[in-house]
């Protein structure tokens, strides 16, 4: 089975490290981590992920901006993006993610099972 590639972006290294360790422990994913929006953009062409997991509130370029840049680029516009947000935008955010304004949001802290369900729902097949 070919491993799916996930790019995890968060300004907190603790979180990207945890995401990588957890997701790779399932044996199903190959995870690359970046700690800023610009670094994530730079990594895209080389890594070409099947899904991007991204923090929303980041210093410098925030998640929304990064997503905008990705959608503008034809090579990457098809890559699904899931936002990990510390500030839940709606009380009704489902544990496995909710679509808010056309973007997929997961509320922090997320449970691993819920995270995997969300990833499986949206990852490029």
């Amino acid at each position, binding site marked *: 089975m070919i491993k799916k590639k996930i790019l995890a972006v968060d300004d*907190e290294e603790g*979180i990207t490290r945890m995401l990588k*360790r957890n997701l790779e422990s399932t044996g199903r994913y190959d995870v690359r981590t970046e700690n800023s929006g610009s670094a994530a953009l730079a990594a895209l062409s080389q890594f070409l992920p099947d899904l991007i997991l991204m923090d929303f*509130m980041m210093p410098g370029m925030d998640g929304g901006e990064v997503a905008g840049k990705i959608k503008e680029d034809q090579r990457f516009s098809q890559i699904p993006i899931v936002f*990990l947000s510390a500030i839940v935008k709606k009380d009704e955010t489902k544990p496995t993610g909710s679509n808010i304004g056309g973007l997929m949001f997961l509320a*922090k*802290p997320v449970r*691993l099972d819920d995270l995997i369900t969300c990833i499986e729902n949206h990852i490029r097949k």
Partner: protein
Amino acid sequence: MVRFVRIIPNLKLYGAPGFFMSMNQPKHEENHSLTSGKSLIWLGRWLQPTGSRAVAMSVIILALIGAVSELVYQTGGTSFAWLHLMYVPIILAAACFGIYGGIAAALVAGFALGPLMPMDVATHLPQTTFNWVIRIGFFLLVGAFSGVISNLLNGQIKRLRQTNERLVQAHEDLKNAQMMLIQTAKLESIGRLAAGLAHEVKNPLAVIQLGVDFLSRMTPPENRDAIETIQEMGDAVQRADTVIKGLLNFSRSEKLTLVAMDLNALIEDSLVLVRHEFSKNRIALEKDLAAGLPKVGLDQGKVKQVLINMFMNAVQAMGTDGSLSVKTFIEPGTPGQSVGILIEDTGSGIPVDKLDKLFEPFFTTKPVGSGTGLGLSVSKNIIEMHGGSIKIGNRTGARGVVVTIKFPVPNTN
């Protein structure tokens, strides 16, 4: 000194914005104006007494009349000078019981001196009878005159007492209104703090949650103690998260209660609540409120909060001896017209490089404890919920800041 805090210092959680504190103290001035009336009211209690105090005064007056007559008898009419002492109880009676009291005392005094007369007639000049009549006439005149004065004064004092009571009541009402305002404003900032706090706390929670999940995968199921421990840690994370979620919900209880109303009236109401700050800092207020503004849908409490934030920012920027101008206007436009308010101060102004930071939560240039930096971010939020807009800039050609707030006028067709 500029502080822009992304991580909230603990201090600030409890450090209420400066103006909340200063609003707790406007009572001094009013209390002062009340005390000058208070001494007159105290006098009023003695001027025309009622109940047991009235009885006591009557006894004293009668005793005084008796004592003076006795003195006159003792001196056997050789010194009529003692007679003049009789004016004391008469004036006292007039003061205590008004015009009738004065007349009654004069009559009693006259008759108390009556027995002196035959003796007088026998031993002295024949005109003394006539003299005696003139005395009583004087007694009556003085009694009546001072009685009239006492009545007038008493009426005045009664009115004063009523005004005073009304003033105390108004003061009480104002205090309550302020307390309510402070309360809502505080809740609002707690909400904003909660949002900031949530962001800072949820990241570490996320790390712990993922760590817990990782450990529970790695731990062999036969190690039941370890599995159970990890389980409990996970539950604790969820509990902490529930608390944060509750705080966030609280911060979003920002539903507006819109009522069509006159922006001018709302401005007047808000100015009342900060007028102490103005007078304390000798700040002149120039009002130019446009007549016939169309009504707009406003949440009274929240918009008041916005206006007070603006006024307090201006006061804080001006220090003492500034001047604040408040204008309202109608702005035609497409799709609809809007009503606006223009607030201009003569304060420090804002450095150009800070202009785009103003609305960020927790941006403040004020010392720790006197500003949380939430005023403008909360205000902007409230105005935008109304569909309105806020702009802040430096005045052109003069020092100070100009704030422009606009609210859309609802279409009537």
